[in-house]
């Protein structure tokens, strides 16, 4: 059992992909600041990669009080073994009280490996983080049962408290690139033979449409109401006119009309665009869990009782095959007038 008092400061892990910081890491510096302030702690960003000094500076611009930077050729690509090793060594040396990790696929790959190794509690895929008033512990809130139930979890007796937090839940602060802060370099080497997985190939989606749903400003999503795969072209056309990303409900993915990479919802992506347009999506609770924190939700569905209308700011009860072509034409006109 570790001594709780020895553990101090709140860490945010900044995931780097293709030389860029994933948005979620920068987002987490925002609630991280709030929690650190309540507990009178420092907000520290952790950056791992190869040639990622610039990312450390970006983390400072987004609010980190300090950055711990670990660089090495072996960290150019993510690997479970390499990254878990670095985080384990850093935690052992610095003893943070709390570690926030973005709930990306890699974040959810490394976090359980790390928490299990150091035998502490991990809360998955949180949509809310706060400080429990009674105990001062982090109160992690997360959906379970396919989004039907929310649970608030504490990790009272072990440190650090670790949670993965969904992308798109928190907003980044306005960056201040004049901010300065300490960047501590740590030399941690992971021998080649200890990294047991090898990335052979990376295949980015080639369909031409934007699929970076977590960072999209506008998303047009299609569901079962489209009826068949070919009709997704209507969604793609609308998305293209709006400069939007294409999303989908699970039903459309299950039907094989579109890739799982486009799926929004409990077992897909959580998104928080400025505008989310749901076309032919009834709004099962699993889907709502992935998109109901969008700023503006527009729903088009022929069933007046569809639950999607409960969360929609604007809804059209009607046939999407009649509504969408007119919307596409009108938005084209608006675009051309600009």
């Amino acid at each position, binding site marked *: 059992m570790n001594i709780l008092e020895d553990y101090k400061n709140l860490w945010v892990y900044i995931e780097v992909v293709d030389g860029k910081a994933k948005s979620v890491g920068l987002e987490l510096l925002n609630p991280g600041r709030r929690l650190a302030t309540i507990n009178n702690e420092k907000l520290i960003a952790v950056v791992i990669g190869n040639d990622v000094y610039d990312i450390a500076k970006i983390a400072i611009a987004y609010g980190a009080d300090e950055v711990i930077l670990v660089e090495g050729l072996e960290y150019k690509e993510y690997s*479970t*073994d390499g990254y878990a090793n670095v985080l384990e060594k850093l935690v052992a040396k610095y003893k943070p009280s709390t570690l926030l990790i973005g709930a*990306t*696929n*890699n974040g959810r*790959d490394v976090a*359980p*490996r790390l*928490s*299990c*190794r150091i*035998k*502490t*509690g*991990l*809360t*998955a*895929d949180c949509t809310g983080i706060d400080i429990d008033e009674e105990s001062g512990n982090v109160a992690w809130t997360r*959906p*379970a049962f*396919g989004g039907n*139930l*929310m649970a*608030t*979890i*504490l*990790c*009272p*007796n072990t440190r650090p408290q670790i949670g993965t937090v969904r992308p798109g839940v928190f907003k980044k602060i306005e960056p201040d690139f004049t901010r300065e802060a300490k960047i501590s370099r740590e030399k941690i080497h992971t021998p080649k033979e200890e990294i*047991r*997985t090898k*990335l*052979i190939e*990376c*295949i980015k989606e080639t369909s031409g449409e934007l699929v970076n749903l977590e960072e999209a400003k506008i998303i047009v999503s299609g569901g079962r109401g489209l009826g068949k795969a070919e009709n997704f072209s209507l969604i793609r056309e609308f998305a293209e006119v709006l400069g939007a990303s294409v999303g989908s409900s699970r039903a459309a993915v299950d039907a094989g009309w579109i890739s*799982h*990479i486009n799926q929004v919802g*409990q*077992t897909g992506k959580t998104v928080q665009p400025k505008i989310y347009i749901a076309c032919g999506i009834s709004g*099962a609770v699993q889907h709502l869990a992935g998109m109901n924190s969008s700023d*503006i*939700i*527009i729903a088009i569905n022929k069933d*007046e009782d569809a639950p999607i*209308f*409960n*969360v*929609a700011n*604007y*809804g*059209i*009860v*009607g*046939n999407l*095959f009649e*509504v969408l072509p*007119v*919307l596409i034409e*009108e938005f084209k006109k*608006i675009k051309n007038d600009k």
Partner: protein
Amino acid sequence: MNILVCVKQVPDTTEIKIDPITNTLIRAGVPSIVNPFDAYALDLAVRIKETNGGLITVLSMGPEQAKAALKECLSVGADKAILVSDRAFGGSDTLATSYILSTTIKAIENKTEKFDLILCGKQAIDGDTGQVGPEIAEHLGYAQVTYAEDITVDGKIVRVTRENDDRHEIIETQIPAVITVIKTAYEPKYATIRSKMAANRVQIPTMTSGDLDIDLERAGLKGSPTKVKKTFTPQLKKSGIIIKGETGSESALKLISLLSDARLI
């Protein structure tokens, strides 16, 4: 290939409704199913066995009723099934659960032979954590690959197609490895009446803490570093403006004028 697939019996969360008066989950009458992602993992195991030969064991931790889920697995291609069950395991979080499962895996391996591959679903649809698979890998000290869409095995080399946020990756590792599986492109095999009847006749063995080299301080509520403080049902925001009873083009134009009034366009 000696393959283990970890499965969990879960309530079908797509069938769960919220009681509008008490605002709580209505669990009564909700069917219990094999966690869908575990079913995909088992299906991949069957496909690996078809090309490489071998034996598939399914392991579940849970109450006696979970044997129904294990029988379902036997009816679609698993060769052996084992339940690990003990009252001392109740209330386990993911760290405790993965500890119990890894201890059980070691006990099974001691009696038979080592597993080359251990497959799990990427997450269970009730807890939705996705942590038990990687934690089993850590307890056993094995390599892991998560979010696998497809797996092929060539000798000791395991090649995984992995989904990663906005891309796919091809990852290579060696056996032994733990791999967690998402929905695959394959249509999982169905049980036949014959395979169901055969599965029903199987006596599935139950292992308890007495069969394991286990520290019970690390199991159940006691062994769980995370504690549930409270649960509640999510609140949805209020309804907005609904346009209905108009033609497609009228409602589209109305929407545009509303969006324009709200300065959204």
